[in-house]
C-alpha cells in the first residue's frame, strides 16, 4: 500500500465533520473527490493522521443559481457542473472541458479543485475572474473568503487547518458580457503551462464597461490581470488597445521557471493568451456567458 497509514472517519453531518477536523489537531484532511489528495497520499507528499470523508454528508451536492450568483456545494463533481454548463454557460463548459479527463471529473469536485490551489489549475483562475467566494465552516462558525484573499502560495490558501470548505460562489457575468478562455498545455487535460480567462462587458456607447482577466500557470497562485482591468474601462476596445493591455498585464507577472518552460516563455505566452481571450470576449459580447 502506497499511502502512509491514517485513520478514516465518515461523518454523517457537517457538525460532526467540523469536530472531526478539530480533533485531528491540524493533521486532518477533508476527503471529497480525492483526485488531488489521493495522489498526494500515494506520493507521500501528504501524510495526514486522519481523513474526514465528507462524501456521505447530505445537502452538499447542489448547484444553485440565484440573483446573479452560482453556488456549488462541496460535493458537486466537476462532471455535474460540466453537464449543467452544457445548456447554461458556454464559459463554464469550455473551462471544465480542460480540467483533466472525464474519469477524473466524474469524481473530482469543484470545491476540492478550488481549495487544492494548484496555480496551474483552471477553476481557481475562473473563481478569481468571476469574483468568487469560498464558504468555510469551522469551530468558530461560518465565514466567506473572497477569491482575492484566498490564494497565498502554491497549494496554500487562507483556509484554516480545522475548516471545511462547504461551497464556492461565482458571480455570473452580467447579461450580454463576452468571455474568452485559452491555455497552452502539452496534452489535452494536462495542467496548463500558462492560461488565461477573461470577461468583458460593453456599455451602450460601445466602450468597455468592465473587464476582468485572470491568469493561471503564471505564478505561485492564480493572478488577476490588473493592467487590463484598469486600462480598458471607458475606452473603445480597439485591437491595438486590447493587445497593449494584455501585454501590460503579462509584464507584471512573475512566473516560475521549471522543467516544462522558462519564465520568459511563460510571460510571452501569457501576453498572447491574454490578448486572445480579450479579442474572443469582445467578439462574444451580446451572447451567452
Amino acid at each position, binding site marked *: 500500500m502506497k499511502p502512509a497509514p491514517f485513520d478514516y472517519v465518515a461523518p454523517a453531518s457537517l457538525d460532526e465533520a467540523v469536530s472531526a477536523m478539530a480533533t485531528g489537531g491540524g493533521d486532518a484532511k477533508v476527503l471529497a473527490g*480525492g483526485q488531488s489528495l489521493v495522489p498526494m497520499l500515494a*506520493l507521500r507528499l501528504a501524510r495526514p493522521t486522519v481523513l474526514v470523508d465528507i462524501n456521505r454528508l447530505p445537502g452538499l451536492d447542489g448547484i444553485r443559481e440565484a440573483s446573479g450568483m452560482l453556488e456549488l456545494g462541496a460535493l458537486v463533481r466537476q462532471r455535474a457542473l460540466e453537464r449543467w454548463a452544457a445548456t447554461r454557460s458556454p464559459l463554464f463548459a469550455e473551462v471544465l472541458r480542460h480540467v483533466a479527463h472525464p474519469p477524473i471529473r*466524474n469524481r473530482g469536485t469543484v470545491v476540492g479543485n478550488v481549495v487544492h490551489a494548484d496555480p496551474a489549475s483552471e477553476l481557481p483562475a475562473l473563481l478569481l475572474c468571476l469574483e468568487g467566494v469560498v464558504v468555510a465552516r469551522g469551530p468558530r462558525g461560518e465565514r466567506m473568503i473572497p477569491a482575492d484573499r484566498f490564494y497565498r502560495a502554491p497549494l496554500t490558501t487562507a483556509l484554516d487547518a480545522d475548516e471545511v470548505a462547504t461551497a464556492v460562489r461565482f458571480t455570473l457575468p452580467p447579461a450580454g458580457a463576452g468571455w474568452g478562455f485559452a491555455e497552452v498545455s502539452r496534452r489535452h487535460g494536462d495542467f496548463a503551462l500558462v492560461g488565461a480567462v477573461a470577461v468583458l462587458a460593453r456599455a451602450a456607447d460601445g466602450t468597455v464597461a468592465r473587464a476582468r482577466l485572470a491568469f493561471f500557470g503564471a505564478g505561485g497562485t492564480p493572478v488577476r490581470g490588473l493592467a487590463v482591468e484598469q486600462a480598458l474601462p471607458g475606452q473603445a476596445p480597439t485591437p491595438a488597445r486590447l493587445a497593449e493591455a494584455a501585454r501590460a498585464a503579462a509584464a507584471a507577472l512573475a512566473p516560475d521557471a521549471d522543467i516544462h518552460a522558462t519564465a520568459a516563455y511563460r510571460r510571452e505566452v501569457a501576453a498572447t493568451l491574454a490578448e486572445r481571450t480579450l479579442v474572443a470576449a469582445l467578439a462574444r459580447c451580446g451572447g451567452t456567458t
Partner: protein
Amino acid sequence: MTRTIRVTVNGREHERAVEARQTLADFLREDLDLTGTHVGCEHGVCGACTVLLDGEPIRACLMLAVQADGQRITTIEGVAPAEGLHPVQEAFWAKHGLQCGYCTPGIIMSACAFLRERPAPSREEIREMLAGHLCRCTGYHFIVEAIEAAAQALAPPIPRPTPRPTPRSTPRNE
C-alpha cells in the same frame, strides 16, 4: 485501521474487511482477484486502472476501497457477455487496437461509457477522450480506429426507407 465494506462488483456482492489506506484498485486485484484492472502510475495519470462506478468511469487508484462501501463497480471482467466479447472488445481485436495490452482494460472501460454518451463521436472527440489514457505501444492510431469501429458496431441499424414505386417515366442514368 480496518473497516468492513460491502460492495457489488460485476453484479456480485462482496463483503470484506479493508484497511483505510487501501485503494479500490488494490482491493479489486488483491482481495477479489480481479486482476484485469491494471495498475500503472498509481496516481491518476495513466488511466490503466479505470473502472465504472455506477456506470461512470473513474480511476480505481484514486478511490479508497472504504469509499466503495455500498457502491456498484464494473471492471473489465464484467464487460463481456456470458459468451464472446463486447462489441468494443471485438473492435479492439479486429482493428489491432492493442499491443502489450497493459492500458487496454482502462481504455475499454472509458470507451464503453464514452460511446454511451456520444454514440457517433468525431476523431477529435475520440482523441480528446484518449488523452486520459497513456499507451506506450500503439501510437494511438489503431485505438482511434477501434473506437470508431466500435461506435459503428454499436449504432442502431439505420431504418431502411420504405420503397416507393418508381414512376415509369424516370430516365435511367446510364
